[in-house]
Each structure stands twice: as C-alpha cells, then as structure tokens.
C-alpha cells in the first residue's frame, strides 16, 4: 500500500506539471505584427519588412477612395451642392436637413463622420510616407519608393484641401504618432489629441506636399486612376485660388502645365455622364478630359455601382 501511494503521488505531481498549458497564441486568421514587419538589431520596430507588405499599403491607399465613398463622394456632393442650393436634401432625416435649412451644428452625424474619415485617410498615408524609406528590402528600388511616397503626398494634400475648405481650422498631421505605453503617455498625449492649425498653415502644407511630390510622381498617362504629376498640378491650381494663399499667376501657370500634360476637352460632353448603349456600364472611362478617376465596376456591391 505504501509504494502504491507513493506511485500515485508521483503520478499526481506529474499530472500537475503537465496541465501547465502554453499561453503563446498567435492570430490564426489575422495579419498582425507577428506576420508583418520585424524588430531591428537595436530592438526598434520596423513596421513593414518587405516591398510586398508596403505594396498592400500602397494598394490600400487607392482602395480608400472606393471603399469609403461617403465622404469622398456622397457627402461631398451633398455638403457642397445642397448648401449652394444646386440640389435639395434627399430625406427629412436629421442628418441631412440641417444642410438644407442652414441649421448645422457640431452634433450633425454627417460632418462628424466626414471629419473622422478624412483624418483616418491622412493617418493611413502618413504611415506610408513615414515608413516607406525604412523597409529593409533590397528588391524595393529607390525609384519605386520615391514614386509611391509622392503619390501618398498628393493623396494627403487632396484630403487636406477638402478639409480646409469645409472646416477652416484643422489639425495638420504629418507624422505617425508613437505607440502609447504607460511610460510615455504624457509625452504622446498631445500627438493623439492634436490642436488645430490655421487655414494658412494647412495650405502651406498642401503646397509643400504637392510641390515636393511633383518630381517623383508618375507622369500623366492613359491610366487616369493614378495620382500623377498632373493631379498634383491641378490641385495646386485649386489651392492657389483659395483666399489664404491666393496667387492667380500660379493658378494660371499650374493650369497651363496640366494642359501641357496632354489633356483636352472631349468633343461630346454627354460622354462624361452617360451609360453605354446596353445600360450595363458607364459610356467611357479614361477620357482625354479626365485628370483623375476613381473607377467603380458593377458587381462589387458598392453603393456607387
């Protein structure tokens, strides 16, 4: 009996030791810092490790135009056209009526949404601009890095141009904030809760982004879905037409350079707004008149298609 108990005790102790299960679980169906990026020799984090990881961010930037059409397209139309009385509000709901009867205040859900989404878009491209030169992938050429970065800057300027015209004072954010930890919370707090800048400062950043992007941005081509040099120039023309930085000479100069990039008006104006004969798709894409296109195809389930 004594040995019997002894063996039992040993058995039990082994059992107790065995039940200690592993607490290291990595995501099974999600990409995360486990699968993306790595730490460098000094322990600092490299967010994106390969060209392919950065490519997914770059493609994601263009997807922002299409996947989030509320602020880029629907709200933009409503805020501009309904307030200018070119159109009526389409419903009696509280989110839309204030644009019609000019009773807009800070509680409106449409402008709250747009504010957040524009800023989210800026943060997305800031991550590209900030990290693209840090990608330790030798196959990722400097030329390509510079081009993607230029496109991201044009994107950022485009968002800020919409924002500053809607709101006036906006936070101008060009850096990606650091991780929040217990140790640095005091320090990073202001970067997560940034104060607003003046329109003047916002326009200066827009001009800086666009002018610095032009040398590396892709040339205008038949593919109008790329943020090209011509897009940057036309945005500059728009920016310089605005009051805080108004300079009509520059407006004219940039407009001329856009024309010189090879754009011309189409002969048939209705071509721009028509469906094709069968009614299955729009009549034309990438016309000579268009500078930048966000293209939607049927079948995606998007509201716009």
């Amino acid at each position, binding site marked *: 009996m004594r040995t019997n*108990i002894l063996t*039992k005790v040993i058995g*039990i102790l082994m*059992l*107790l030791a065995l*039940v*200690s*299960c*592993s*607490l*290291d*679980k*990595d*995501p*099974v*169906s*999600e*990409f*995360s*810092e*486990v699968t993306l990026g790595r730490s460098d020799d000094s322990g600092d984090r490299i967010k994106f490790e390969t060209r392919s990881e950065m490519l*997914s*961010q770059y*493609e*994601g930037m263009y*997807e922002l135009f299409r*996947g989030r059409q509320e602020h880029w397209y629907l709200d933009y139309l409503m805020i501009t056209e309904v307030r200018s009385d070119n159109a009526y509000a389409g419903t*009696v*709901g*509280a*989110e839309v009526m204030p644009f019609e009867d000019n009773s807009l*205040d*800070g*509680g409106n*859900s449409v402008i709250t949404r747009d504010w*957040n989404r*524009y*800023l*989210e878009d*800026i*943060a*997305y491209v800031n*991550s590209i601009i900030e990290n693209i030169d840090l990608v330790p992938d030798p196959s990722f050429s400097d030329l390509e890095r510079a081009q993607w970065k230029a496109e991201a800057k044009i994107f950022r300027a485009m968002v800020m141009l919409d924002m500053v015209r809607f709101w006036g004072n906006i*936070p101008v*954010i060009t850096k*990606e*904030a650091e*991780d*929040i*930890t*217990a140790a640095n919370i005091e320090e990073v707090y202001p*970067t*997560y*809760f*940034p104060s607003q800048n003046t329109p003047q400062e916002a326009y200066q950043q827009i001009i800086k982004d666009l002018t610095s992007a032009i040398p590396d941005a892709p040339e205008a081509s038949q593919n109008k879905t790329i943020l090209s040099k011509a897009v940057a120039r036309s945005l500059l023309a728009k920016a310089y037409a605005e009051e805080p930085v108004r300079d009509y000479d520059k407006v004219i100069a940039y407009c001329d350079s856009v024309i010189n990039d090879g754009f011309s008006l189409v002969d048939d104006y209705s071509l721009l707004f028509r469906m094709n004969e069968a009614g299955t798709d729009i009549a034309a894409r990438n016309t000579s008149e268009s500078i930048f296109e966000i*293209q939607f*195809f049927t*079948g*995606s*389930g998007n509201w716009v298609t």
Partner: protein
Amino acid sequence: MKKKTKILKQKILCSLFLLSGFFLLTQGSLAQELTVSGTVTDEQDMPLPGASVIIKGTTMGTITDMNGEYSISADPAATLVFSFIGMKTTEIPVDGRTVINLQMEEELATLDELVVIGYGSVKKKDVTTSISTVSTRELEKKPITNVAQAIQGRAAGVSVIKPNGAPDAGMVVRVRGTTSLNGNNDPLYVVDGVPMTDISYLSANEIESMQILKDASSAAIYGSRAANGVVIITTKSGESGEAKITFNGHVGITDLTNKIEPLNLEQYRELLSDMELNISLPDNLTDQTDWYEETYQTALTQNYQISASNGDEKMNYYITGGYTREEGVIEVSFFERYNFKANLENEIRPWLNVGANVSYSDYTGNGIISGTGANRAGVVLSVINTPTYAPIWDTEKPDRYYNNFYGVNITHPVENMSRSEDNRSNTQRLLATGQAEITFASNLRLKSSITLDRSYNHSVSFLDPVKTAWGRSNYGLGSDNRSLSTVMVYDNVLNYNKSFDNHSFDLMAGSSGTTSEWSQSYQSASHYRDGSIKTLNAANKISPGNGTVASEWAIMSWFGRLAYNFSDKYLLTLNMRADGSSKLHPDHRWGYFPSASAAWRLSSEPFMAGIDWIDDLKIRGGWGQTGNQSGLGDYAYLERYNIIRQNWWEEGNQNATVILSQANLRNTDLTWETTTQTNVGVDLTILRNRLTFMMDWYYKKTTDMLMTVDLPAGSAAANTISRNEGEMTNTGFEFMLSSHNFTRPNFRWDTDFNISFNRNELTALELTKVYNYAVTSEFVNEYAVRIEPGRPLGGFYGYISDGVDPETGELMYRDVNEDGILSTTDRTYIGDPNPDFTFGMTNTITYKGFSLNLLLQGSYGNDIYNASRIETEGMYDGKNQSKAILDRWRIPGQITDTPKAGFDIKTSSYFVEDGSYLRVKDITLAYEFKKAFLSRLGIARLQPYVTATNLLTLTNYSGMDPEVNQWGNSGAVQGIDWGTYPQTKSFVFGVNVEF
C-alpha cells in the same frame, strides 16, 4: 421529497448502509426483544427512505427502505431515535408497541446546510464570505427557458433583467453592479465545476442547487473570470437506494402584457391634414387591418423532462432528457431545445472515485427585426406605424406584400416579420467531464477532471426574392454561417484538512488550465430564382465577402486556499491565485490576486450562551482582488490588420491579392483589469431558526479597467486601442430576510425578502474622456447616452424639455447655458437608468397538499428613455401614430402635454420616463396527491400545478413594459426602449410525477 444538499446526505447514507449491515449481523444474538416496525413519512405524507432509526444510547439501528418502512428489534422500554437530514430528530419511546409510524417534521435549521464555495463546500454557519443561495425548489414549476431567470428577484445583490420578450432572449445578470464599461459584465457560471459564460443549453429541471458568490473573497477562487461574481450550479445526481423515474411536463400559453393603440383611419386622416404633408389618401379607404391581430399571437409554450436515477453505496447515476419549445408572441420567433444529460459516479476502489457528466443539448431559435423604425422593417414599431387602411397582400400582385403607403416610407409588420421568417440559429453543445478523486488518506484528497465543452452553431438566413420589397431589390438573399468552439478545461485540486483541539484547518491547492479553439465559416449569396430552394447553391451570385476565420486563447491558473476555524468562533479564509492569459501582453500576462475573509461567530461565545433566542450571530468581513480579461479580443494587445479584398474581376486585378489596413494600435502594456472589493456582513438567525437576516455592505473598485479606447482620427494609422484605461466603483448594501411564519405540519408559510442598493460611478478615464452611445430614431439621429468620469454609467443625455408652448404648440427646450440660442451645448444629463434599489419577495404557503408560491419583484428609481415614442408620438412624417397624440396641441391657447404635429423633436427629457415597477413575477399553485391514494396506482408522487408569470405589473411607464433594454447586455447602455420585443405573460399547467 424536499431536496437538501446531496453531498453530505450521500455520505451519511453510505455510512448508514454500512452500519446497518453490521447491525443486521449482530441482531441475532439479542434476545427478548420486540420487533418494532412502521413507516416514516415526511410532512407531505410521502415515504421517507433512508431515514435512520437508532435505539437510544446504543449504536444499534437501521434505516428505512424505499417505502419508508423499517423494522427493528428493540427492548420494550427502549427509545427510538428517528433522524434524517433536514428533518427534526424525533425520539419516541417504544412502550411495548410493535408498530410506530412517524410523520417527521422538517427542521428549520439551515445552519448545517452545505454551501458550495468553489472547489469545495462548507457548512452555512462557517461561511465567511458573501454568498446567496437561490432556492431551486420551485424551479421545475416555472416556465423558465433560461436558467438565469430563476435568479430574478430571489437573490440580494443580483440584478437580473430580461431585456426583451423574445423567446431566445439572453438574460442580463449583474452581480453588484457593472464593473466594466465595454468589457464583459456577465457573471461566470460554473456548472458542475466547469466554468462557462453561456448557460442557455441548460434546462431548469436539471438543477439541484444554485449559489452566487458575490464578494471578492468567495469569487476569488475562480479569480481570472470572477470579477463579475460567480454563479455555481450543481446539477442533479442519483441518490443511494432510490430508484426512481420522474416526469415533469407543462403546457401553457403566452400573451402580450400590454398594448399601445394606434389611430384609426379617421384619426389618421386628421393627423395627416394637421401635418400639411403632401399625402392625399383616396376616399374609398376603410379600416381593414388590425395589425396587432396580424402580428401578435397567443403562443404555445411546452416543456417535458423525464429522468431516471438510482444508486447504491458505491455507485449512482442520473439520466435525464427533455424537450422545450417556446413560441413567441410575434409569430416567427421561437426557442426550441432538446436536452440530454447523464451523471455517473462510482467508487471503484476505496481510494478511488470516478465520475462522468455528459450533457448534450440542441437548441434552435429565431428572432425578429427590432430596435429600428418601420422605415427599416422594425416589426414592433411598424405595428403602430402602419395605417389601418392597408391590406396585407398586394391586390394586383398577390405574391407580394402590400406596399403602397402613398409616399410614407414604411413596410407593414407582416412583411417585416417575413423578412426573418426563414432564419434559424441552431446550437449543438456537448459538455463532457471525466473526473477522478483519489483519497490518499481520509483527510487528503485529489480531484482531477478534464472537460470538453464543444459547441457548434449553425445559423442560416433566407429572404424570399419576391414577397418583400427588400427581397425584390436584392433578388433574394441567403446566408449560412457555421462556427465550432472547443473549450478544454483541465482541473487538479488537492484538499487537505486537519483538526485538533479547537483548531481546524482546510487547505486547498490546485491548478486549472483552459484552452479554446474557435473557427467559423461565413457564406452569403443573392439572386435566387424563387423562394422554393433556400440553400446557397440555388443562388447565382456568391458574395465576395465569404470566408473562414479562426482564433485561439488559453488561460492558466494556480490557486490555493487556507480556511481556519477556531472552535466555530473565529473563522478565517485566505486565498491566493495566479492567472495567466494569452490575450494579454506576454510581459504583463500574469496577474496575482489575493483575498482574505474572516468571521466571528458571536453566538458561540460564552457570553452569548444565555441568550436563547439567538441561534446564530456572525460578523463577516472580507477583502480581495479578482481579475478580468473576458471582454478582450483574443489578440487584443497585438497590432492587427483588416483584410480588404480587391475586385479580381476588374481589369488589371486578375491576380491581385488582398490589401491590408491597420485595424488597431498595439498595446505593449495590456494587463489584467483588477476589481478590489471590500465586504462587511452580518448573519443573524433567531427564534429557533425562524428568522434569518443577512446584511452586506460592499465597496468595489475596478482599476485598470479594460476597454476599447476611441482616439481622435488622424494621428496614427488606426484609432482604437485596447487599454487598461479607467476606474469604476460600485458601492452597495444588500439585505435579505427569511422567515418561517408558520411551521405547523399541515400549514407552513415562509417569506423571503431581499433588497439591494447599488451606486455606480465611473471615476476615471485616461485618454478619451467622453463616450457617446445609443443612436435611436434616424429622424433625430442623436446619441442618447453619454459616459464620462464622475457619473454613473448609462446616463441619458440631451435637452431638457419644458413642456408645450400654449401659443405655438412647440415643445420648449431649455437654453441651459443661457447663450440665447438652442444648440448642442445646451444638452445635459436628463435621466439615469440605474435603479435606487431593486427588490424581490417570495411567499410560500403550504396547506395540507396545497402549496402556493408567489414572487413579487421590482425596481425603483430607474429612468427609461422611451425612444419608441419618437416613432409612435413624434408626428414627423406620414407614419401612423399611437392614440396618445389625440391630445396634441391644435389651437393657440390650448394647454396640453402633447406638442403639435410636426414639432421640433430632439433627444430630450420629453421621452424620459420613470421606469419603477412592482410586478407579480409569478404565482404557482400546486397540489400534492396523498401517497396512500397514489400507491394503488403504482405512483410515488403526483403533483399537478398551475403557474402564471408576469400576471400584473404596477408602473407609471407608458411603454409596452418597464423591463426593457434594446441594448441587451451592454454595460454602457441601459433602459432604452426602442422598438424592443415586448415582454409577455404566461399561464402554464403542468404536472410532476414520480414512479
């Protein structure tokens, strides 16, 4: 037979069996003795098997058999001592008689009852912590589909709300308030030792006992998941010497508790003309449809459970199976469950006891579209919003629902119900536990168990491509989602106890490991040919969003407990626990949670010895910490990415792969949320156990509160982070009184009363300081709830309405900041959904075979934001309205509380109402047939009963029912009525039979 705690009873029975064998052997040697025989019965005249009959002053005796009969040889001058757990020990002199029958009286003493405290049990009088025991006696007679309903109104400090009346509605259970803002606030359920969060698989009939561990010191032993309290449920098991088959069945009907009348056609026309809308109804319309009639039904509810159990001194088993179906008062909704369970225990060696619990349950439910307006197919609101002139079917296209409301954007309730009529959510759950208990010595035992908790959910939906407008615009929709969850629990617990002189020690140490694997497949498709084939293969267009996902988590814990008892006077319990969770950052993964509690039994002190009327007086105190991480996502600390699919069918995308977009910020500090709780309590039992009082005061402080923080957009690639972000406190007082008013054998009257006060306050948030929740009506489109430090959770936020302006008929809103204009800055707190107190009172009266059980339950001082009224009394478009608006302002000078048609609607105090209520929660009348009558039929027990639930509710609330929350189990949002599935009342008739 009255159920008492089984564990002790079995032990006693076992030892009695062993003893009786010895007695039988020795009996032959005794001479000149009488053979005394007789029957022992309980108060209901039921035979009492297993009662012991001992000759006083000796160790000789026997126990009663299955029929309560005994036979013993005794000296004619001897005295027999009859005893049985839970009954008064009775001494009867033989006086030369050969037949002695006894009807035993129930003993009121509950101080020796065992209370399950987690990995063990103690006598009630030795409890040092705050534990509520929920009476399970009446459970089988109630039409309860979710076991948590059994707690409602029956335990102090525990708030139970059924947030809506849907048959498959989950219950909202809060033990001592809400501890976490957007983490999990549900208590941990421990069923037969297995921790879990969902108990909808469980049938109320299977339950033997239910205890709620409320304070940190008691809950600590389940520390890692116990911050919100622990509900310990023990299911039935077989009993020695009692082979029995029991059947419980009930059938009943459920109905709406309340109705809100819509306008008739004439009143509706008048409203439209008042509103000056561009809606002109044809003249030939008539009142033709009563939408209540078409939407609501008197529904059938049924429940049948059968069980068989038996046991001897070494082995016992319990097998049960059953079927429950509850139809909803709204036709398409229902809940249906098949349950099966087997418990088996066997002592295969003197030192080894093995057991198995296997439980399998298959349940299916369906709901309705609720929490939205009639413009988005909300069923409940469309019943009022649909004008009575409309028919159900389109007269020209008879396969479609009628849809012409002359420009008003609504669909009628029958169409809205039809939207979800083919949806089903089915869950199959298997819980299997194997356990072994090794007794090294009588005071040293090891219990090991392994549990598999596997649940498979299969949810399908189908929307007909023709009948409904939404179906037509999508050409029919179908979806099929399947998930499989496997949780394994490995427990090892070592128990040691030692007593000498006046000292008694109980030591417990153990480990517990839990691993979880979960996977899901989600598929949807559209473009169905017609409604005849509903599976996805019949859909032409497969959604690009289909996929499969999976995740894992694990928790590892080590724990120990030391209980010390000095002469039943001074009691001390110390707990220590270490928990590690895979969901937390590897550097901060382990949390250490100590707790301690002590009690002083004054009634055992010599100076109290003279005070007869006090049976027990005990002062308890405890302090402890518990951890929580249950609200977190499985990989919350990691920076994760959303996957966005590219449209591969587009030009240039033929070989595209997915795009990644950062979903959240990483948190290298993420650690346990800790709740520190202090508890002080008094237990008092007086007048020979007639009256029992329990009082508890507690202070709970949650620190490192886990939540998903929303940061301003723009600063980093994502703007949410899971953080230990805030602090919250709950302070409360709870009081419980249990009284045996009458205790005569033929007439008993027991009253139990409990009342709970809880004050909640969010005391700190570190980053974002304000959170808004609960947008209801799209027409108003404002948040109704605001959360910020310094306030209790769930405060309603909006404008103050100062009544109707008699001149203009407009609702007047207060310019709170007195800046001359009304704007969003004039919003303030306009209501608090947290009750001042909640209470429950149970009365049980037994007269001969009859018993009456009545539960009153209620809540006082809580507000409800009745957002449904925006839709039914808002008069903002051409929707039909409730009769409440007949009082609306119409001419200048009119004094009324109801503003004019087309008034300026805001989220305001106009829609905030007092939600206090007192409810006759349930009444049960049962009759227990006499045993003598039944035995001829071969039946051991027959008890028919009728139960009525939600029979009567006293409230000033104007909505359908004051027990409501469209946000269900939310920690942040409470008390919002927004097109919510209304509560129901029910009447059931049932019977308990035992063979």
